[in-house]
């Protein structure tokens, strides 16, 4: 399955410096199956030594294999390095989505979703959303989750959630990610397992943080703040889970990772829960959820 892992490669230039910035870089598979890098100027060759990528993202291509590069992700960053990312084609992926529509959620590729709390349409000038609102009571919750908690696995899972905070983010806890159970919505999910985003005022989170929770209070790892959080603000939460690492980002910003992950195979489901840790009702609106696995 690893051939379908989304990945980003950085191809660093060799010591041969192009004569001018107008030169063009190319990538190709050499005879030994390694990606090589070539600069040309006026079609005169400047050929470097083969690049043997030494990190986990090594990609070897035989002379009959294919390199698939989607979108405009092949970028010449200037004199220092070239960078490109490639993602599996939609046709090759196992995926599911949840869309906000009106005052309810529509699943695609999974059999159903379950909600609690008060749901209402919360469309704005950016997108459609459904507001999940708790009762005005401490420890009340509002939530959206996949009815079956077996729609994802830990490894090779990519999750993207577009949500908007409510107008009051005091005394609140928001958990959003993939979990093996929806039974524990505390700051520490105890014996449950999950890889998720959290913002919790009771945990004094400085903003959105990413968490890998293996199976116990001690078996977990929390990132630094990925992004500060404000009321009435839309956030794009992205999470990639590899073999032994989960990478989090918010609004396509800096990536932070954790390695305290449950050992696969473990069945998981999507869950976003808003916990009222004060008294006034709390809300979070969800626009869309997209998950790719396998």
């Amino acid at each position: 399955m690893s051939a379908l892992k989304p990945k980003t490669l950085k191809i660093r230039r060799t010591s041969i410096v192009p004569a001018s910035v107008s030169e063009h870089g190319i990538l190709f598979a050499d005879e030994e199956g390694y990606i090589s890098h070539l600069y040309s100027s006026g079609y005169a060759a400047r050929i470097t030594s083969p690049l043997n990528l030494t990190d986990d993202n090594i990609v070897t291509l035989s002379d009959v294999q294919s390199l698939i590069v989607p979108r405009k992700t092949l970028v010449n960053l200037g004199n220092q390095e070239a960078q490109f990312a490639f993602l599996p084609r939609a046709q090759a992926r196992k995926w599911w989505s949840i869309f906000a529509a009106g005052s309810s959620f529509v699943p695609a590729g999974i059999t159903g979703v379950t909600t609690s709390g008060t749901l209402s349409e919360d469309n704005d000038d950016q997108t459609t959303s459904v507001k999940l609102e708790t009762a005005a009571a401490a420890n009340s919750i509002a939530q959206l989750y996949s009815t079956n908690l077996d729609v994802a696995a830990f490894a090779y899972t990519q999750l993207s959630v577009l949500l908007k905070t409510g107008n009051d983010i005091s005394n609140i806890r928001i958990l959003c990610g993939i979990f093996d159970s929806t039974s524990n919505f505390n700051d520490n999910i105890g014996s449950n397992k999950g890889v998720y985003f959290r913002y919790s005022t009771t945990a004094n989170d400085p903003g959105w943080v990413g968490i890998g929770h293996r199976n116990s209070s001690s078996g977990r790892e929390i990132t630094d703040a990925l992004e500060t959080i404000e009321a009435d603000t839309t956030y794009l939460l992205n999470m990639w889970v590899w073999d032994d690492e989960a990478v989090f980002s918010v609004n396509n910003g800096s990536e932070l990772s954790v390695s305290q992950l449950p050992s696969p195979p473990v069945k998981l489901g999507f869950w976003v829960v808003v916990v009222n840790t004060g008294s006034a009702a709390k809300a979070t609106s969800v626009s869309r959820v997209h998950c790719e696995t396998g």
Partner: protein
Amino acid sequence: MPARLNPKILTLEENPTSPSTPANDDVLFFAGSDGRVHSRSSSSLSDRSAGNITIKDEDLNVLISNALTVKTSPMLSPLYKLLNSSKHQEIWLPIIPGVSARKWWYINGVSGGFAPVGIAAPSTTGTLGSDTGIGATYTYCTTAASSGSNAGITSTFNVVRRGYNPLFAAKLSASDINVRVWVGLFSAAPGNVDNLGTIKGIGFRYSPAAGDTGFVGVVSDGTSQAVTPPLSAGGVSTFNPNDFLEFRVSGDTVYFYKWGSEIHSLNTNLPTLTQDLGLCVRVITTEAVAKSIVIANVWCDFD
């Protein structure tokens, strides 16, 4: 239907300077400052030659900027492949249509069942169950323990036609001993046979009884059948849904892939352009032992 929406393979001619040591040469694409596609052959990483390439298929407007961005029609997903197909003689450049520009349907094997998107729920045979691998959860279908029984999924047999240039993909695995496995688009569900007979279709077969050492591509016009060499030797995979099978119809040719490579093609005995086809993914046991097929997901997009 605009031809630009069809999956297609462009054949780019090599530059006229013949490499002196062909066995060692690679052919490269690169972006010229004029925005045109250029090629260069290299041997042992030394420059060999340079020259422009003529793109023969004018239906596809490929522009490559200096920043190495491949731009295709806005209606196409800018996905492309660079493939040295036959030792520097030619390079194929398949352009895969963007999902947003095509009709499509998708079936996800999940939660012990199958969740359809863009298509009615498939009919199932056999006993269904849920399994979890390292990378995903998925659904398996198991036959009865009687020779000839089958397990898998089918749609109605009118959800796509060859004339719509379908791109079909399935990720799966199956028992590999004493089985027949059929995967693809057919006019009716294939039975416990190696030859489709009167059934028209395009798909994959794995049948050790027919001598298959891996999945083979199969097409049938209802009278005669054509078969590719095996896409991968060594049988089918029984570990996780680890076979990613794909075929693309482009006019009068069908290209078969496994994991995006290992291309074989067929251009005879295809179903007619207007033949209604439907999905079948199934395993058939050829002994009195239950066999399973694991189905992670099935995809089809078309004009």
